[in-house]
């Protein structure tokens, strides 16, 4: 009985917080107030102050987490609707994703290795720009710790999404394709959710960029690890 109560309480906590934070963001649409950041911070603060561990939260949280799979499947719809536009822009897509994947792996490796971080942390950090399940696979493959990888993936997702409007303006990424590919390559599905603010074409290129990035990083990351730690 108490188990069922905890489940309901945790689901309600998540949904209500997200609903309220979405309303807040609609009223004050500043990048720092994106619902994923504010909701996560508030829920962590509530759990810590009630001394509830993450595992207890997840007894209810897993039901929301379960919908992530079908939600990613649903990205096939914008993909299908925009298929002609995507085929026409294959060069931009593949070019952007390749350059982005390389930049992510190389800067991550250089900087982390440069300041003398231990290898296990470097390998957990390298796949950060890729969607969570793939990033965890890559980390395992190159000798990292997948649960640490999730933390890095979340920094890339949330941090990138918060900074994206400033970067897009500063570097004059003024084409919907550039905006979508930037968000999908750097901030995976969290970035793709943000790309819907730029329109359906930006969102669909973002989801394609996210998928392509997952593939290129899973191929490139093990190769660069070998080169850097030969």
């Amino acid at each position, binding site marked *: 009985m108490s188990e069922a109560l905890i489940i309901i309480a945790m689901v309600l906590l998540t949904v209500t917080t997200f609903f309220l934070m979405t309303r807040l963001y609609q009223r004050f649409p500043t990048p720092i107030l994106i619902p994923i950041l504010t909701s996560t911070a508030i829920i962590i603060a509530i759990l810590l102050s009630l001394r509830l561990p993450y595992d207890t*939260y997840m007894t209810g949280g897993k039901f929301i987490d379960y919908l992530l799979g079908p939600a990613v499947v649903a*990205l096939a719809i914008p993909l299908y609707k925009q298929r002609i536009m995507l085929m026409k822009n294959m060069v*931009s897509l593949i070019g952007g994703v390749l350059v982005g994947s390389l930049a992510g792996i190389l800067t991550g490796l250089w900087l982390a290795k440069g300041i003398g971080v231990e290898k296990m942390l470097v390998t957990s*950090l390298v796949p950060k*720009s890729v969607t969570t399940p793939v990033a965890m696979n890559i980390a395992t493959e190159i000798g990292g710790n997948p649960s*640490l990888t999730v933390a890095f993936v979340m920094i890339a997702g949330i941090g990138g999404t918060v900074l994206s409007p400033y970067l897009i303006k500063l570097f004059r990424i003024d084409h919907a394709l550039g905006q979508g*590919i930037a968000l999908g390559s750097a901030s995976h599905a969290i970035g793709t959710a943000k790309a819907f603010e730029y329109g359906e074409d930006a969102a669909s290129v973002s989801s394609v960029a996210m998928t392509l990035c997952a593939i290129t990083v899973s191929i490139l990351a093990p190769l660069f690890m070998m080169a850097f730690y030969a």
Partner: protein
Amino acid sequence: MKIFVTIIQIALLVVFYLVGDWLQRLLHLPIPGSIIGMLLLFICLLIKAVPLKWIETGAGFLLTHLTLFFIPVTVGVMNHYQLFAGSGIFLFFITLFSTICVMVSAGLTANYFAKRKKKISCQKHSS
């Protein structure tokens, strides 16, 4: 009535997810089941095996609330805050800086190709 339709359509999307997940384990693919499910649904839409109207409402619901489904995973960061304590804060800034590099380089490259293409097609029209 609309809730009913939405639930049935989400159930259909779950089926695609489960098939993708099953294929991933069966064939030991390095791509996650959800992405395989997405590709399967995309193919089904292309060959008209699944009409768009069978899933459009359910998919629309999931995509509008896409960020909500990430929250349980992002809350998991609470187990790793000690990683970023002390000198570990460098890891946070490296991750952020590297993410900026990815975003800017991918965005600028794609933007360059997209605009060059536009220019070429404009020239074709004017000539």
